């Protein structure tokens, strides 16, 4: 048996082993896959051996089926038999049954296939087809060009920011290579293995030349790659410009810049409908990683970007004096810088706890935001410049108590001067606000009459019941849109609610303001630590100031809704972005950078180009060297002497004959060849050559040169000039001369 197995068959057996292993890997235990691989391997060898013997077809088929049946029977026996299972242990018996099941199947089926194809060579097609199916089955999810599938393969690559295309290409090439090995296994000529090299060259050329979108250019804002590269660059420039201007403007105290780069949170107007299409609402803005588990009291995470506290005669706007609202994060921290925010929360507040967050911005934002209430902000290294615009870390003090714990607190700060008090309690000159607020107080239980928080809360609860949330409402063309909203048509969105609540509270003398930024439902976080903020979650909410607790968010949550809800975020996207943002924490930065720079396609192109250049020069040198050598051989008799002359003379003559296409056959004797050509001079040259080389004779040089000259003339007489000239120019003519 050993003698009849060649290395080609071993290679084919290995291919079968791979195929059965791959196919089993995804349906059974890894160890069972390895057993199946051995089954395929030995099944193939068995098939090779038996197909070379005189075994008849029927017994072979019977052998295969009985092998199959036996393995299944034993497998079932081991796993189902109570006594055996208890003897071996449940786990062991399961493993053993799996081994038997898959190993036996592989052995029996591969044996049969090989046996059949060994008898009928056309059945190699069945072998190749089977291996193709086995190899392709785990990748079936990729069909129809789903770039993101199969998940087990693509997800780990994407989370490391690697392009799956070369990997899929590579797997395809590997499979094709295995098939070529299998197909070549039956041929005897070694040259056929050239196919394999050519195949790999073809695939690498295809990969280098065919356009394929790299994940390196992958833009989450542009997942379909609709925008051109130039456009993107332009956009990025414009964004930078806008940010720079905004910063300058902020420094000069002129408020925010109006040109480009405005975030949703800043765009909110009181008098325009905010109805935007669903897709825009879903646009990711940032991913926030919570460093610790935290469930907010209000059920929402509030990320404050700005606050509107100054009444400008029509609505509340950002403070322009620069004296109040100093607890806002106005600029991004630069690298290595830690911004400390003058937070309104006392550092030892019993109502708060510390919580760290990492914010990775997906959209360019003029201003940063922080989970309320931010205390410090530090620039963090961008974990993934392709995905994120920037990242920073925030330390926040988050409210950690129930509302009722706040009931005893006084509103406002006793240390405030008159101006600050006025700033936070100014409202439109409209008595209806106070009248409404006072009306609400009637429902307040007597024991809470002294609590500012309770008084504010009862107003909020009234509003929850009364107003309707809708993005469609507009309160255009009226001097006071809030009054129009509160007293005429209580339908509106967050800005209306926030303004209305603030005006009502301010009419009661409670200092309050509108906070703006993003708010997201705490339930969206699921079990992860990543919170995805989307453009649709831009929000404005009312806040009141409590002595000892700082600005406390007391958001209105209307019971009546008219559309405008945003869908829950895609948990996969949230998880993926979270992993990308977190990647930095896991790996050393240097390694990551070096890793990312590799562009396989570029490398392949470079290699091919280098190969081509090398080939070009090598070819040129080989070409010239070839000519030189050809002429050296042709004219060697002119200077060769002694024992060398007979060899040189015969070789020169044979080369000249090769130029006109007359060559000695493989294994043909020199004398037989000379006789075949019928050229007497060649016979003479051959005789002297053999006498010199094998007989130890020393021929007469003159006679040899004469013979050579005669041969030249004989050839010239027999073959036309053009034929000889063509042969003389042909650089390869001497290759066939033996």
């Amino acid at each position, binding site marked *: 048996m050993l003698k009849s197995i060649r290395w080609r068959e071993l290679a084919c057996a290995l291919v079968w082993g791979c195929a059965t292993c791959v196919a089993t890997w995804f349906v059974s235990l890894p160890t069972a896959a390895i057993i199946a691989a051995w089954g395929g391997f030995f099944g193939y060898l068995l098939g090779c051996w038996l197909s070379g013997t005189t075994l008849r077809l029927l017994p072979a088929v019977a052998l295969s089926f009985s092998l199959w049946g036996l393995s299944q029977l034993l497998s079932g026996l081991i796993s189902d038999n109570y006594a055996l299972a208890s003897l071996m242990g449940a786990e062991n018996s399961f493993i053993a049954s799996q081994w038997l099941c898959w190993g036996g199947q592989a052995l029996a089926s591969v044996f049969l296939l090989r046996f059949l194809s060994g008898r009928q060579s056309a059945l190699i097609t069945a072998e190749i087809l089977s291996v193709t199916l086995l190899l392709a089955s785990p990748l079936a999810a990729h069909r129809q060009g789903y770039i993101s599938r199969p998940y087990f393969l693509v997800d780990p690559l994407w989370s490391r920011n690697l392009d799956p295309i070369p990997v899929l290409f590579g797997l395809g090439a590997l499979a094709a290579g295995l098939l070529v090995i299998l197909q070549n296994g039956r041929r005897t000529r070694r040259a056929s293995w050239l196919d394999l090299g050519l195949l790999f060259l073809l695939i690498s050329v295809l990969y280098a030349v065919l356009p394929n979108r790299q994940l390196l250019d992958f833009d989450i804002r542009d997942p379909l790659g609709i925008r051109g590269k130039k456009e993107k660059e332009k956009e990025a420039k414009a964004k930078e410009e806008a940010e720079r201007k905004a910063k300058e403007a902020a420094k000069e105290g002129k408020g925010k810049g109006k040109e480009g780069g405005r975030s949703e949170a800043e765009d909110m107007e009181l008098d325009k409908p905010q109805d935007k299409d669903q897709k825009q609402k879903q646009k990711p803005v940032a991913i926030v990683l919570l460093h610790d588990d935290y469930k907010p009291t209000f059920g929402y995470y509030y990320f404050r970007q700005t606050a509107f506290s100054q009444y400008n005669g029509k609505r509340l706007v950002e403070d322009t004096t620069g004296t109040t609202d100093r607890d806002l994060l106005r600029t991004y921290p630069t690298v290595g810088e830690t911004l400390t925010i003058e937070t309104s929360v006392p550092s030892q507040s019993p109502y708060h706890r510390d919580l760290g967050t990492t914010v990775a911005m997906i959209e360019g934002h003029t201003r940063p935001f922080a989970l309320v209430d931010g205390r410090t902000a530090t620039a963090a290294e961008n974990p993934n410049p392709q995905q994120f615009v920037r990242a920073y870390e925030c330390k926040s003090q988050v409210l950690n108590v129930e509302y009722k714990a706040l009931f005893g607190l006084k509103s406002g700060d006793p240390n405030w001067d008159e101006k600050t008090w006025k700033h936070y309690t100014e409202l439109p000159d409209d008595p209806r606000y106070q009248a409404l607020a006072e009306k609400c107080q009637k429902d307040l239980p007597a024991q809470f009459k002294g609590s500012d928080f309770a008084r504010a809360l009862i107003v909020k609860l009234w509003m929850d019941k009364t107003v309707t949330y809708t993005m469609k409402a507009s309160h255009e063309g009226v001097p006071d849109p809030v009054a129009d909203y509160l007293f005429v048509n209580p339908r509106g969105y967050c800005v209306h609610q926030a303004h209305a609540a603030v005006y009502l509270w301010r009419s009661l003398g409670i200092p309050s303001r509108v906070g703006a930024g993003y708010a997201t439902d705490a339930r969206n976080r699921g079990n992860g630590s990543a919170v995805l903020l989307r453009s649709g979650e831009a929000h404005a909410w009312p806040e009141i100031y409590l002595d000892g607790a700082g600005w406390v968010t007391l958001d209105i949550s209307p019971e009546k809704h008219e559309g405008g809800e945003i869908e829950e975020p895609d948990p996969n996207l949230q998880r993926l972005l979270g992993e990308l943002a977190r990647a930095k924490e896991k790996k050393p930065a240097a390694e990551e950078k070096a890793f990312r720079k590799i562009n396989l396609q570029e490398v392949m192109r470079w290699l091919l180009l280098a190969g081509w250049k090398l080939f070009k020069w090598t070819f040129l040198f080989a070409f010239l060297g070839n000519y030189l050598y050809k002429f050296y051989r042709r004219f060697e008799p002119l200077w060769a002497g002694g024992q060398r002359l007979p060899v040189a003379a015969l070789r020169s003559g044979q080369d000249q004959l090769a130029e006109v296409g007359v060559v000695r056959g493989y*294994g043909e*004797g020199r004398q037989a060849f000379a006789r075949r050509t019928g050229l007497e001079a060649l016979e003479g040259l051959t005789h002297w050559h*053999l006498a010199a080389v*094998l*007989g*130890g004779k020393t021929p007469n040089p003159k006679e040899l040169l004469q013979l050579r000259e005669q041969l030249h003339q004989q050839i010239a007489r027999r073959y036309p000039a053009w034929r000889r000239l063509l042969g003389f120019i042909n650089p390869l003519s001497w290759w066939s001369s*033996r």
Partner: protein
Amino acid sequence: MSSAISASARQELLGHAQTVVQQLKARLTFAVRGRDEVIDLILIALLADGHVLLEDHPGSGKTTLAKALGESIEDRHNADHIEPFRRVQFTPDLLPSDVTGVSVFDPESQQFHFRPGPIFAHVLLADEINRTSPKVQSALLEAMAEKQVTVDNHTYRLDDLFFVIATQNPRDQVGTYPLPVAQLDRFLFKIRMDYIEQSAERDVLRSYRDRRAAAPANAPRVTRDALVEARRIIDEHVYIDPRLSDSLVEVATSLRKSSEVVQGVSTRSLVLLLPALQALAFMKGRDFVIPEDVTGLAPHVFGHRLELAPGVEDVHEVVKRCLKGPMESLARSTMK
């Protein structure tokens, strides 16, 4: 190469030997028409101190050939009274002593005297060797290998020129004892004699009467001593290049490796091949061996020593195929 004598002396010696061989050849070609190739091979075997096995149909001239060969050799100082030619027809009931000879009791001298059998001859025709029992076959084969026979614990030397032409019929196999490969190995050549060409056959019929009358007297005979001397000269003065003998090893290896061959050739066959190559080169008028000599002789030398795989028919084709690689590399090595 022998360097003790000058080149001209060497040429002279070779010339003498050449005369002897030409005389012998002339007699044989006169006696048997249309068998030039077979005659050449038999002469080569004779000069190379080997034996031949002829495989052919009855009446193809093998006895004529063997007889002509025997009659061409004369022994002027025949001290042992060795016959130039003997023929033994091998039958199943033949005994070894019928071939080797037997000790006979002489009542006069009260001693046993050895009476030599037909094996004591220069040329022995062992007709239908496969018809006799293995016992007789092995007695003959021992004599062929050792050039001696042992009767009653006494060893008798055979003549140096002892040359066996054995024949067997490839068709009529019933009741025969086919020679095993180990015994076939002792023959230098197994020669297949196919029917001769029409023109040669016509020639045979036309010249039959003339030849019958003129044959013995026409051409000069050669002496046993001259023949033995020619053997020695060829052995000493025909040169075999080491590259050539190396390539013989390559041929043997490639035959042993071939998938068409079950049992390859023996080392003995290679040793036997060397003098045969010398003889062939000599007969072609050369004093050195060239690759074509190997291609010419190898099929005849190796043909009967190979056991072919089932389904492979033509042994000469197999040998020719296996020769190609080694011969090619030999041809290339001569160009360096």
